[in-house]
């Protein structure tokens, strides 16, 4: 006995071995810290670069070149019959008002070709702008007012430095004459970059200067709101049933495995399913936020169910026992104690699911939300598109003006995401009990 109990080494020997290994151990720790730091720096660099590119490209989209012109609302042009009737006001030739104003500003311009060149400085949509103002307020007729009108996209590109003046005339979208007029307007302060209301208040357009993001924002809002309304209750109810009420047997195991599998299914498959079932079989409208939301619900449900089950599992058993020991029935235990404690975790899962849903485009392409839609959707069954699909559409457009619109749309998408996540985090904090 005493032989085996005798230490193999003296205390000094042991200490010597320990100190010898110390340097190696500390070195390993330092090395690991350096790896971690390098990883974080690399990740941050990519992120900063990404944001820099997006913001430097996209901020231009929030400013737009506009021309200031003194418009005389000539009664002879606007309302030749003098009825002041809305239909008459609508059908008037407002382009003529702009032509007349330009003519007055540049009296030296003569001839058909030059006049057309001159009027190309103004966007084609400016006439509609005037039409709307007159219809809104017929009293304008007969007066002269200075109006800021949308410049054409070529003028806008020049103002933002995307067109090189040094190129030969034939290779740039603006002629020498047009450049001269633009310079003159700039000198007079009648041509300026102003805040782009159009971008934030209109739907899509084929003309870059008229294209707006609002249609996609509203589409995304409807789609996500419906997704939330559908997926949160269904997901939470499924999780509560599986976790608290279902018996553990082969069927629940099978369901669990399949929920986990569904979370990994590529999203485009859900799009095809939605196309076949919701549109093909049930005959729901195409391109509608309703169908988009149903598809995205299928997509987010597994995430919400898995996160909610994990949150329910994390509720301490002592709380369940306390409730049952008081004589609470199972449903009282679940609704009074377990769900309130699991709610923050459930909300976290929902945030992750909704963030994924916001960024999805592939399944929505399948159900027709990729269509060119000019109108702002007024309900969940109206044709609509969503932000990521709008980004996809614009990035595909050939016009130079859409480049900055694409980045602008990404900025709006990011802002949407941040607002949504902040709301969710605030909600979660509210429900979280830190006692």
């Amino acid at each position: 006995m005493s032989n085996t109990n005798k230490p193999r080494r003296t205390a000094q020997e042991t200490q010597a071995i320990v100190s010898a290994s110390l340097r190696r151990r500390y070195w390993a720790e330092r090395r690991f810290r350096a790896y971690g730091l390098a990883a974080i720096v690399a990740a941050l660099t990519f992120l900063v670069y990404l944001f820099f590119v997006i913001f430097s490209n996209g901020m231009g989209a929030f400013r737009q070149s506009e021309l200031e012109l003194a418009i005389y609302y000539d009664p002879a042009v606007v309302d030749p019959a003098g009825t002041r009737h809305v239909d008459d006001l609508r059908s008037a030739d407002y382009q003529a008002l702009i032509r007349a104003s330009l003519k007055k500003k540049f009296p030296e311009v003569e001839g058909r070709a030059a006049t057309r060149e001159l009027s190309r400085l103004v966007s084609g949509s400016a006439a509609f702008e005037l039409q709307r103002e007159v219809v809104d307020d017929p009293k304008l007729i007969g007066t002269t007012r200075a109006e800021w009108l949308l410049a054409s996209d070529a003028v806008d590109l020049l103002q933002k430095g995307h067109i090189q003046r040094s190129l030969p005339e034939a290779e740039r979208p603006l002629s020498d004459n047009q450049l001269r007029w633009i310079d003159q307007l700039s000198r007079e302060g009648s041509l300026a970059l102003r805040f782009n209301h159009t971008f934030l208040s209109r739907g899509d357009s084929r003309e870059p200067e008229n294209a707006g993001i609002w249609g996609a924002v509203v589409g995304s809002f409807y789609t996500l709101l419906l997704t939330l309304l559908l997926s949160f209750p269904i997901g939470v109810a499924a999780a509560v049933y599986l976790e608290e009420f279902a018996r553990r047997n082969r069927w629940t195991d099978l369901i669990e495995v399949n929920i986990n599998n569904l979370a990994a299914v590529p999203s485009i498959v859900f799009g095809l399913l939605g196309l076949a079932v919701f549109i093909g079989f049930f005959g729901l409208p195409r391109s509608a936020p309703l169908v988009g939301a149903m598809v995205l619900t299928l997509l987010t449900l597994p995430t919400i169910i898995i996160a909610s089950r994990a949150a329910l599992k994390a509720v301490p058993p002592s709380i369940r026992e306390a409730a049952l020991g008081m004589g609470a029935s199972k449903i009282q235990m679940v609704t009074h104690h377990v769900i309130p404690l699991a709610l923050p975790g459930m909300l976290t899962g929902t945030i992750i699911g909704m963030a994924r849903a916001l960024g999805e485009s592939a399944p929505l392409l399948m159900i027709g939300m990729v269509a060119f839609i000019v109108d702002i959707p007024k309900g969940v069954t109206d044709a609509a598109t969503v932000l990521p699909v709008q980004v996809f559409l614009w990035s595909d457009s050939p016009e130079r003006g859409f480049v900055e619109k694409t980045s602008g749309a990404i900025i709006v998408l990011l802002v949407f995401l941040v607002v949504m996540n902040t709301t969710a985090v605030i909600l979660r904090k509210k429900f979280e009990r830190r006692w």
Partner: protein
Amino acid sequence: MDAVTVERAGINQKPSGRVAEEAGAVELPAETGRTVGTITVEDPIFRCRDVDVYYGEKHAIRKVGIDIGKNSVLAMIGPSGCGKSTFLRCLNRMNDTIPNARVVGSIMLDGRDIHDKKQDVVQLRARVGMVFQKPNPFPKSIYENVAYGPRIHGLAGDRVELDEIVHNSLQRAGLWEEVKDRLQHPGTSLSGGQQQRLCIARTIAVNPEVILMDEPCSALDPIATARIEDLMEELRQSYAIVIVTHSMQQAARVSQRTAYFHLGDLIEVGETDRIFTNPRHRLTEDYITGRFG
């Protein structure tokens, strides 16, 4: 006999594995289910006979038979894993919540089998309250903790009555003076001993007939323990109390009757004074003299 011993050594785990071997050497009850001492009392509230509990394949307690008297404290002692908590949890059917747990035998509460189909488990738990080892107040205010039971059972007609129940329960649990100014504070902000008294107040707010306590003082310091023990003495006037404890001193202080469990068998039952001064079974004697456990 050998087969039984081997089986028990297998059932029993870790620290008491050594004990099991030693126990195999000493005498066991002549036959399984035969308990030394008097298991009956006059006019019992609980009458349990031949109670077996299985956790899946594991036979946790065997043929336990014991009466639980009104207005008295029954202490259940024994080494870890001996089945005393398992038996306690049979009395309000908390074992129902454990998957694979199976309870056999008859447990009569006031002459009615608690496993009877007509016996509602919610009602049973309102009659047989439970205080757990670790204080487990709900993450709600002190008031809400006590008011929860009366609220779900509909015991209070209006707010005034509910206030009164909360007041009385906290008073009887000896907590009123300490918390009367902060009823809206969270229950978890109290100290461990206060939390356990809050749990007792919560239990008596439902006005049960029996209170089960599963090592209620094991997480508390001696001062908090002394308060709970005093409280038990008072509560005994109105309720039957069954307490599981690891402390033999506590059993001796608070109980009138003591039951000694060993590896799933109820070895000996008797008056507490008699058990601690004159144990009849060898295993009981070994345990209370500190030879193992």
